[in-house]
């Protein structure tokens, strides 16, 4: 895997518009994801975080310019984008309920030598349930399958949508660890409501408000500024949001 030029962003989004069922849900969004570390995409419920990620991947109707390591991907079909090394952990887990855990993982393997051991060590719970149908897993277990599907390949970029939603506090820790670990080899664009996790992982944040970018900058700059946190995210105290 040839790493991108150090200061070139791995992902650059310019004037992105996205529509669902004829309704504009992403409006003129522009931001960069640097080639290393975690960039968090924040915003209140319904501002269009998920839609932005789906637009990048071509899962919904979109126009605008999206570059992956300098190459235009805004006209490519989803599977091509993913084949170029972009992994996606969707918001609602979206595991294949009628397939077993093992089958879910096998389907996700893109690389010639998938990192099965890594996944097994990250989520021992799944190892024990390889033959269980994913539809019968608990919510949290499904979330693990969803993450595992992304981490089993080597990626150039991870798009992760609310990975800690519905996870027990201890697992939240573990997932955060796993993401921190993953971020050492591939940059991550992370959507997350849990500001503690954001603070721990993210170097940079991009904040959306009603479909537009209202803030981009280093994570501390935002998180330490109670005023802005309050304004953009509607949170008084980040502890409260944990």
């Amino acid at each position, binding site marked *: 895997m040839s790493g991108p030029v150090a200061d070139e962003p791995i992902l650059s989004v310019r004037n992105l518009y996205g529509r669902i069922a004829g309704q504009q849900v992403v409006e003129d969004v522009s931001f960069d994801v640097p080639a290393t570390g975690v960039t968090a995409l924040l915003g209140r419920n319904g501002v269009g975080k998920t839609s932005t990620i789906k637009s990048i*991947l071509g*899962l919904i109707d979109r126009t605008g310019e999206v570059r992956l390591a300098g190459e235009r991907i805004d006209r490519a*079909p*989803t*599977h091509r984008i*993913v*084949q170029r090394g972009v992994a*996606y952990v*969707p918001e609602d887990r*979206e595991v*294949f*309920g*009628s*397939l077993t855990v093992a*089958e*879910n993982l*096998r*389907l*996700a393997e*893109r690389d010639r030598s998938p990192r099965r051991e890594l996944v097994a060590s990250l989520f021992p719970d799944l190892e024990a349930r390889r033959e269980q*149908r994913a539809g019968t897993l608990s919510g949290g277990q499904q979330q693990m399958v969803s993450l595992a*599907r992304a981490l089993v390949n080597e990626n150039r970029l991870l798009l992760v949508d609310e990975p800690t939603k519905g996870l027990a506090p201890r697992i939240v820790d573990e997932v955060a660890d796993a993401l921190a670990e993953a971020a050492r080899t591939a940059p991550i664009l992370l959507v997350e409501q849990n500001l503690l996790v954001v603070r721990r992982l993210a170097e940079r944040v991009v904040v959306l408000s009603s479909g537009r970018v209202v803030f981009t900058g280093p994570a501390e700059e935002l998180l330490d500024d109670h005023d802005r946190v309050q304004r953009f995210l509607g949170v008084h105290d980040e502890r409260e949001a944990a």
Partner: protein
Amino acid sequence: MDTLVLLLITGLGLGALYFLVASGLSLIYGLMGVLNFAHGAFLTIAAFLGWEAGRRISDGTWTGLAISALVGILVGATVAVLTEVLIIRRLYERHIEQALVTVGISLAAVALFEGIWGTDPIYTDRPAWLTQTTEILGARIPNDRFLLIACAALVLGGIVLFLRRTRYGLIIRAGVENRHMVTALGIDVRRSFTLVFAIGGAAAGLGGVLASVYYGYVSAHLGSVLLIFAFIVTVIGGLGSLTGAAIASVLVAVLQQFANFYLGGTGDLVVVVLLAAVLLIRPRGLMGKAA
């Protein structure tokens, strides 16, 4: 005794025919989540063109039959792919609409075939051996039944291997459930779906040619006659389960034979009763997975 053997083996032969038609249907049904009403049309067009080719090149010989089968398979696959690319693809994840367009296709296709080839059946020739019989335990079994059974076994084995050995089986099952997520894993679902359609169409094509051997004719309604039984065995067998379809084919055909013979020709009645009974007791069918 010999009647029993005769009923059993001819039942098996009929079951093989049902399965040949149902295999493609079951595959596509498993993939689309809906019944493909155009499957009968795939079969009929393959039978017609297979017959046209076979009779042009050599009539009533094994070469002729082989050519018919080959042409039938190609035609079935091509027509299925065209249907998928031009029509079904535009309606992905709208299962009901998909089933509906296939209804439209089958209506239009049967009418078109009638326009081209007429309403009368066209009788076909076949290799002499196939018109003869072989005696088993006192029963004279028509040889073409053996051909049917062999082909059905080959198709079953072939498709099962294909689904086991490749990732396509997984892709299809996952794709039915959540197509977007499959693409988001970097898989070209469309190509997989088209491929599976081609295989289903090819199976239908082979089934069409063999059906014309079995019936001794081709006609515009060849496919529609078989389609209803193919539906029944597909559903009894269970959504998308090929082995289920195979078991159900044999079950239905043998039962039908016995009922037709011993219960005053009530074969078709017994089959629909079986259908209702199986579904009411086991809504998923014999081998179907929980939805």
